[in-house]
């Protein structure tokens, strides 16, 4: 495979697609699939056949189009977007290709939800068929890899990534270029590149969407990374709970191997890289890199002390590069367009874009990609469309169980790594949950503590015992049996957990409690002193109808 051959594939694919006068794309990613988008696609297929338009109209299953709350989404001829399409609408949709659009299903694409987004990672998502490599190649796929292999040395690749200013999208925001050069400098017989697709954060589904919508992009990023650091073997550690992502990754790996873009002597060079999948088994702690490595080695996913960092001693004791799905997905466009291009997007210290899974009490829930530095207000009120039912926004939660709740007074704060940590939260992997006045912040803190308690691996005592004790205290408070001493005990325990836990799970477990104590301390006191919950969530044990 060389540059000409790749162009040939792209050209053939474009020719093939030009034969069709019309194209209907149906979203077949997780969100829409769960509202019967597969049935919609089948119905459209059969309506097309019924009208004898098979050679004129192409129906394609594509990845996530973003606006999950309005699914199933269908786009026609790349300009019209239809929402909440039912299988019964298929006939009208096919008829409309040659006439007026079906106005009752039309979704406006000039609304801020679409206009305020900037798509880099998700550029192909919703446009290409994730199960066909040709479609990805036609969208400039693998041209970055060919360029790297034919024109660049590993060092130049790393320089380009450093120049881009890309930071790890898994949560901590470690500079990607720096990580790559550490692994590249390590001397060893074998090196590994691992893709962390163990998205355990509840309320986050970005990685899943990327894998389901555009698996080749992640694969290409990984191959480029392997070339840059000198790795010859790689693993994608993906959650077993994501069967569709697993299926599409397997297909993608097979297709890339068939074209000689993966495996031995990639593109006729001496570079070898083999990728295999490893299934996670539902342990949040396996998102931590040393725990992830233990899990790939077939053991219980318990972390170990660092240093040595995986970049020096990782899988099988060899230098190992671990990056998140979204980080790898950013690499192909960086190589294609240059690091300087990427560095122009975003803020001074946080470059590029970030994909968020927007959910909770907000009008438009779904997957959004916004440039770094955008304000929270823009995300919630413009992209998200505001709070439904005329309620008041109370807080935005980012970073899942390791993050914090940002109160509404900080809505005008830019979203980047530094600003978020300044207000006691973190960027995290990209879950963003909007809460209104119907949420009790003490209850939310209890929810996250419950999560951390059950996900604590039990290796180190501060985390194992501390999360349990903090959860008990929060349970007392939400059951209206708390004392004011409980609040100071919470603070004390939070400090112990933060400073003495072995890994990130324990160290960041107190964050939701600390941030709610800091901004919503009044609610804690109301529970303790007045035995009242302003949101009306706590205290009552009975089930509301």
């Amino acid at each position: 495979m060389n540059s000409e051959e790749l162009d040939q594939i792209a050209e053939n694919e474009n020719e093939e697609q030009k034969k069709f006068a019309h194209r209907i794309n149906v979203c077949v990613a997780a969100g829409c699939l769960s509202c019967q988008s597969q049935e919609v696609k089948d119905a459209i297929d059969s309506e097309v056949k019924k009208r004898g338009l098979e050679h004129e109209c192409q129906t394609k299953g594509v990845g996530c189009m973003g606006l999950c709350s309005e699914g199933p989404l269908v786009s026609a001829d790349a300009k019209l977007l239809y929402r909440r399409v039912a299988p019964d609408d298929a006939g009208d949709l096919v008829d409309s290709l040659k006439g007026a659009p079906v106005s009752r299903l039309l979704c406006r694409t000039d609304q801020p939800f679409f206009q305020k987004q900037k798509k880099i990672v998700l550029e192909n998502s919703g446009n290409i068929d994730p199960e066909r490599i040709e479609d990805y190649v036609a969208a400039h796929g693998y041209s970055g890899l060919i360029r790297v292999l034919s024109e660049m040395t590993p060092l130049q690749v790393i320089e380009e990534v450093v120049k881009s200013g890309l930071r790890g999208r898994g949560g901590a925001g470690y500079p990607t270029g720096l990580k790559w050069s550490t692994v590249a400098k390590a001397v060893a017989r074998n090196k590994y590149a691992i893709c962390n697709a163990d998205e355990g954060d509840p309320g986050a589904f970005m990685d899943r969407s990327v894998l389901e919508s555009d698996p080749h992009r992640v694969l290409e990023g990984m191959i480029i990374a392997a070339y840059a650091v000198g790795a010859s073997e790689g693993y994608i550690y993906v959650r077993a709970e994501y069967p569709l992502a697993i299926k599409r990754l397997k297909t993608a790996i097979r297709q890339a191997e068939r074209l000689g873009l993966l495996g031995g002597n990639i593109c006729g060079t001496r570079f070898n890289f083999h990728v295999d999948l490893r299934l996670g088994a539902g342990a949040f702690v396996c998102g931590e890199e040393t725990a992830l490595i233990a899990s790939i080695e077939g053991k219980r996913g318990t972390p170990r002390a660092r240093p040595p960092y995986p970049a020096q001693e990782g899988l099988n004791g060899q230098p190992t590069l671990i990056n998140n799905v979204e980080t790898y997905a950013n690499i192909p466009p960086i190589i294609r367009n240059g690091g300087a291009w990427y560095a122009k997007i975003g803020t001074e210290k946080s470059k590029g874009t970030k994909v968020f899974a927007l959910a909770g009490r907000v009008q438009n829930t779904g997957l959004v990609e916004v440039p770094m530095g955008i304000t929270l207000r823009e995300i919630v009120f413009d992209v998200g469309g505001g709070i439904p039912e005329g309620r008041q926004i109370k807080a935005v939660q980012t970073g899942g169980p390791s993050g914090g709740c940002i109160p509404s007074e900080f809505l005008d704060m830019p979203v980047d790594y530094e600003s978020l940590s300044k207000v006691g939260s973190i960027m995290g992997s990209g879950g963003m949950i909007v809460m209104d006045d119907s949420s009790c912040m003490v209850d939310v803190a209890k929810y996250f503590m419950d999560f951390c308690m059950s996900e604590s691996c039990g290796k180190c005592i501060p985390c194992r015992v501390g999360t349990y004790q903090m959860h008990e205290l929060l349970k007392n408070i939400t059951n209206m049996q708390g004392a004011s001493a409980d609040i100071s005990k919470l603070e004390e325990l939070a400090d112990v957990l933060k400073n003495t836990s072995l890994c990130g799970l324990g160290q960041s477990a107190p964050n939701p409690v600390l941030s709610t104590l800091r901004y919503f301390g009044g609610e804690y006191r109301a529970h303790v002193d007045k035995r009242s919950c302003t949101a009306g969530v706590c205290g009552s044990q009975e089930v509301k109808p």
Partner: protein
Amino acid sequence: MVSLAIDFSKPVVPNEDKRWKIVDATMRRLGHQPRALIETLHTVQEAFGYLDEDGLRYVSASLHVPLSRSYGVATFYHFFTLKPAGEHTCVICTGTACYIKGAAQLLATVQQDLGISPGETTVDGKLSLLTARCLGSCGLAPAVVYDHQVSGKVLPNNLREHIAKWMTHEL
């Protein structure tokens, strides 16, 4: 007298079931290395629905890992289950988005009506109640999976009706 000699003979398949061939294939593909433990357990669970003691013993012997380690791994990860599931499964998503939109009430409904906690099965083996950390269907919160069929924006009454239909064999 108990023999103290180490048994180097090939482990014996627990029973005649053909599904063990699939398990053997996975172990062969990964070279019967101890590191293949999790992958193998995934295969066993996929083939049989759960992990039982015979299965764990067989996998341990084949991969040369102590039974305690297989058991440790099987109980560490939430995805593995040591008990067969009920006739129907009801998975309630307890991800943050679903929680904010009332997943706790759904959970309480089932717990109150049937007296089972997450991870348990009713005495008659009819229904297993499970929770998921996030289904990625946050746009449809709160979400419930009835026998692999995702259902969104579920209210406690919908849930009650659906379960009642299962219990009376209407579905």
